[in-house]
Structure formats: C-alpha cells, structure tokens
C-alpha cells in the first residue's frame, strides 16, 4: 500500500501539480477547450466506477427515456455480466463486470456509452453533419440528414455509433446525452436514476475539479488518473477507477490529440491543390504547346 501511495504522490506531483501551475494550466486549456465556441461550458458526466454496484438502473432509465425495445434478459438479471457486452442499436448504455486486480472479491462495474468528446471524431467525419456537437455538451444525431455511410463508426475511437443492419431504412444509434433533458436544464436519465451517485452530471470543468478532489482525498481508493480528461483531446464523460484503466476494458493507447486534427492537415492542403495544380498544369501545357509557334510560322510564311 505504501508503495502505491508513494507512486500516487509521484504521479500526482508530476501530472496534477504541474498542470495546476499557471503557465502549464493555460497551455492545457488551449489544447483542450472546456467551452464551446459560444462560450457556453460543455456539460459532462463523471462516472466513478468505485461507486458503481452494477444495478443497471442506468440501462433501464436509458431504455425508457429513448423508447428502446425491452432487452431479452431483464434488467434485474445478473446473467448478462457473464459476457462482455457492447452497446447496440437498442441499448445505448451497457454495464460490464470486470475482475478487480486489487481486490478479487469486489468486481468492478463499468458502464459504456458515448463519451461525448469535446471535439468528436464522428462529427468531423460526417459529410452531412448528421453528427453534431451541441454547445450544451451532448453529441447528437440528426437522423433526417444521415445517409448511412457509417464513416462515423470507422472514425469513433471508442466504437460507439451502432448501425441498424437489419432495417431497410436504417439509422445510426448511440447515446445522445439526453439532449432534450440537458437543454431543459435537467440531468440525463441515467444520472438521475443512479442510486449510488456513481454518475455525476455537471460542467466539465467542475467535474474535473471534483474528480481531482476525490483522488487527492482518497489516494488509496483511486488510480491517479481521470480517464477522458485528456484522451482524444478530452471527453465529456469521464471515469474514475480504483485500478489501472487498461484492466477494466479501456483503451489507453488513444493519445491526447483530438481526432479532427488527424485530418485537418490533409484538408487544409485541399484548396492549395485545387488552385495550384490547375495553374501549374496550364503553365505546363502552355510551355509544351507549339500552337503559338506554328501560327507565327504560318504568318511568316505568308503562303
């Protein structure tokens, strides 16, 4: 325990402490915008996996809120935990059970849903703006615009958008962060339903402060990292865990660069090519063409 505590302090000192220092802090906010362009702060959710008991009340509430079909196995059955589940077109949030590497008697429950990235890859990938990051925070889906190309699914680092493969008129389905509720000033259905307070809804900046506070105050309870604080440029939904995130199904190799940046370099070359290429080619063509010379010759010859 003491070792892990020391480790924690070292990491906290390196990561948290330095980040709180003035210069580094402003650099970080520049990298990870906390607010939308309109100056409204994004809402998000802090999911504390150390508090989750796997009751699946969030799943049930989500199901009701989004009028999704009833699941095959009832929400009260624990049998679903035997297999790792992924979200589906009919289930926007699923809870999975993982063995606890720290305490084998206490399995860890982790819910999985859209992370509502600060700069979502799906929204930048969509060619008809069917996926959209709202100023309130949730990334929503406009079904009337979607053409079903599924590029959002290719682009999402968390593999969240799901497609209705068995419908002749299919849509992409995913958690939309209960946009209507959030816009009304309410919290998402899953957060409201959680009996353990494992899901905390609020402004992203406040949630990060709260998460840090929890880590500082209970260094033995928490792994010293907030998943989603920096991943892919920051996500709206963030996680706390007792164990390293790698052991409870999270990808830790996604990097901190936001995904739209991956294509921005290429896209910025487009106008350049579209303007320079024709100019160069016309020049080439003119250079090589002997039309002018022939005309000169003809007039010189005078026939």
């Amino acid at each position, binding site marked *: 325990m003491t070792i892990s505590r020391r480790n924690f302090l070292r990491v906290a000192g390196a990561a948290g402490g330095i980040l709180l220092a003035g210069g580094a802090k402003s650099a970080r906010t520049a990298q990870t915008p906390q607010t939308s362009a309109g100056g409204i702060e994004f809402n998000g959710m802090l999911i504390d996996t150390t508090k989750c008991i796997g009751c699946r009340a969030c799943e049930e509430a989500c199901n009701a809120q989004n009028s999704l079909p009833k699941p095959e196995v009832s929400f009260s059955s624990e049998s679903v935990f035997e297999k790792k589940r*992924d979200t*589906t077109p009919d289930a926007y949030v699923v809870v999975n059970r993982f063995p606890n590497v720290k305490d084998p008697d206490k399995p860890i429950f982790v819910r999985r849903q859209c992370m509502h990235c600060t700069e979502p*890859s799906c*929204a*930048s*990938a*969509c*060619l*008809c*703006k*069917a996926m959209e990051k709202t100023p309130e925070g949730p990334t929503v889906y*406009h079904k009337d*615009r*979607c*053409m*079903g*190309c*599924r*590029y959002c*699914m*290719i*682009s999402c*680092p968390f*593999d969240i958008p*799901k*497609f*209705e*493969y*068995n*419908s*002749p*008129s*299919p*849509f*992409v389905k995913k958690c939309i962060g209960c946009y209507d509720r959030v816009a009304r000033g309410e919290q998402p259905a899953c957060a409201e339903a959680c009996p353990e307070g494992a899901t905390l809804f609020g402004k992203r900046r406040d949630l990060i402060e709260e998460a840090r506070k929890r880590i500082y105050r209970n260094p033995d309870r928490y792994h010293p990292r907030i998943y989603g604080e920096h991943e892919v440029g920051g996500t709206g939904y963030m996680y706390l865990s007792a164990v390293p995130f790698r052991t409870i199904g999270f*990808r830790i*190799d*996604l*990097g901190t660069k936001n*995904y*739209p940046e*991956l*294509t*921005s*370099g*290429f*896209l910025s070359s*487009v106008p350049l*090519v*579209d303007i320079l*290429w*024709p100019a160069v*080619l*016309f020049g*080439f*063509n003119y250079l*090589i*063409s002997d039309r002018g010379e022939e005309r000169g010759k003809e007039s010189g010859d005078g026939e």
Partner: protein
Amino acid sequence: MESNVKPMPLPGKPAAPDTGTLKGFLRFLAQELKPRGKILTPFNVVTGIIILVGIAIIAVRFARGLGAVTNLSQAYPWGIWIGFDVVTGVAFAGGAYILTFAVHILKVKKYEPIVRATVLNGFLAYVFYSGALLLDLGRPWNVVNPIIGNAFGYGSVLFLVAWHFLLYTLVLFVEVSPAIAEWLKWVKAKRIIQKVTTATIILGVTLSTLHQAGLGGLFLTAPSKIHPLWYSSNIPVLFFISSMFAGFSMIIIESMFTHRIFSDRLDEAHRASHNKILLGLAKGSASVMAAYLFLKVIDLTHGHQLGLLLTPMGYWYLVEVAGFTLLPLVLYVVAIREQSTRLVQGTAVLTAIGVILNRLNISVIAFKWYEAVRYYPSWMEIWVTLAVISMELWVFRWVITRMPILGAPPDFTAKEGTLNNLDDAEVVRWKVSSSWKVSAS
C-alpha cells in the same frame, strides 16, 4: 444536326437515321441497342447468370437491410463493397487521369491510341463504383445531402471525396463524349467539346489528385484501428502515388484483353505502336513504384516499426510490400532492359494484385486486426461485386463495338462519303467464339 455527313447506306442494311432529330435519334438508339452477333456465348451466359442472381441479392438487400446479405457488423462497418469496389476500383481507374495528363498536357503522342479506351474504362469504373457505393449506403436516398442539402460537412474528408468523385465522373463523361458525338455524328457538339478539352483534362487531373489521396485520407481518422505497419500520416500521399501505378498496370492488363478480343477494331497504327506503349507504361509504373517504396521505407523506419515485421501481421506486410510491390518493380526493370512485353504484362498482373492487397489491407484486413471475430465477405457480397464487374464489362463491350474507341476517330473534316471509319464500324459484328474472340463477319 449536320445533314451533310450522312454515311453511305450499306447494302442490305437500313440507312442510319438522321440523329439530329429526336425521332431519328430514338430510332438510331433503338437500332444500336439491339444485341449484335451470337447471344448464347459462354461469356454471355456466365455473366448473365451472375448479373441476374446479383440483382436478386440487391433486391433482398433493399427489402431487408444490409445485414441480410452482408457480413458487416458493428465492429466492421465497411466490407468489400467499400474496400474492393470503391477503394480499390477507384485506384485502378487512375489510368484515365495519368494518361490524359501525359497525352494532352505533356503532349506525349505515343500514348494517344490508348487514351480513349482508358478514359472509357475510367468513366465506366466510376459510374459502376458509385453505383456499388449506393448499395452500401444505408440510406442512399440521402446521398444528395452533402451535394444540395443544407448540411455541408466541410470538416469531413468524405465530403471532399464525395464532391471530387462526383465532379470527376462528370469530367470523365466530357472526356468520353467526343466518341459519343462521333457515334451520333454530331459534328457541332464534338467541335464544342474539343474546345474545352484542355481545361477539362486539367480539372480532371486536379480532382483525381485530391480524391485519390482523399480515399486514403479517410483512414487517417482510425489510428487506433489500423495496424501500425499500415497506418501512417502519409496515407493520402501513398494512395495518390499508388493510384498511378495501379492505373498504369490496369491499362496494360486492359490492353491485353482488348487486343485479343477486339483485335479487329484496332487500326494499324495502334497495333504497331503497342509494344512501344507497353514498355513506356512499364517505365512509368517502375519509377512511380520506386518513389512509393521509398516513402514506405521512410514510414517504416521513422515509425520505429521494424520490430513489428517479425510478427504474423509483419509477414503479411512483407508479402504485400516485398512480394507484390518490390518484386514487380524489379521485374519491370528487367522487362524494360530485355524489351519483353510479355514480362511487362505478367508484371502488371502482379502489380495489380499488390494494389488490391494494399487497399484491402488498409480498409479490411489490417483494419481492427486485433478483433477476435474477424470480418470476411459473405458469398453474396462477392457475388454482387462480380455482378457489378459483369455489368461494367457488358457496357464496355457495347460501347467498344459501336463507338470509335479503339480505332482512329472518324475524320469529320473530310467530305461526304469518306467516313470510312464510321462505315467500318457498322460492318463489324459481335462474334464471340468459345475463345472469347471477336472477328469481323
């Protein structure tokens, strides 16, 4: 449109109607649409069955959704309809932009005899691949949204690809249209088209550059899903460069078939220059492949991925890069030194396999290589792909046997009655023998 170019009626054959009037045009079209030659040939029967069953599968796909006929899953949203039909097919259609660039911009006259066939191939490829793309879209009726809709996703690589794809297809149509004008004997139309040729070709090269690169750019957003040996921030450049040698090899392969099957339609000049053309294409292909491999090596060493070569995916990578890109490069060089067109043709096939492997690797095989349940295409996905190719071949054959594509274009400036090429075109009949050979009747 021009009454003074009416061809001399051939004995025993109704006079070609005047296509200038609507009635005449329709009669001409009806006459041209009729199949020529034997109908029940092995080629026709086989492809006919493939197309009929393919249409049935497509009907099921639209009635019951993509899941009914494909093996696509939540983990693999894109299968071979995207990875092969679109991503690979478009690379092979690259021959059109590279050849029009050589002939019309750089004025390399040597390749002139093969420009029309290559452009036609490119145009049909685009039409049929965008058709295949519609099959893969979940909501194809919304395909116009990024074009005319109120929702322009400027920040999307796919938005760029869609626009350039559409515009380039139109450009290819303009590039094909001189042959159509000659077929319809629309002299004035041809004259107008010829005036915009240079501008059209420059536009075509520009659009191709960006959308060949853009197809690769699509995969930039999946750094955590594509195997590190294939993922690179250079994917757009690699796609663009490889579309050149994909185009070169496709022209070589295509000419192998057209020379055998449509030999009667080739003019002497074409036949005589054919060997020179093939060796020239091999040179072009080899130099571009060298540049491509150079970039591949840079990617490999800069990414510190040399260790990954000694994993199963690494061996697979070496099969693609060493076996089907480096080896063909060496063979091309040997073929150029030995002046062996045979070897050029064989190498073109190897190169094409390499391009198919590369595109399938990035879009399907090395995509989520870590997944426990992998995607492999269903027989119906493969069948529909074959049906699309068969339909394209039918249309290609129909056009080749009716329009001046392979032979020299008719001389509209000549006086009445000397349109030899056009009249010759009318004489030629389809006759596909069991060896798929066409001979004039």
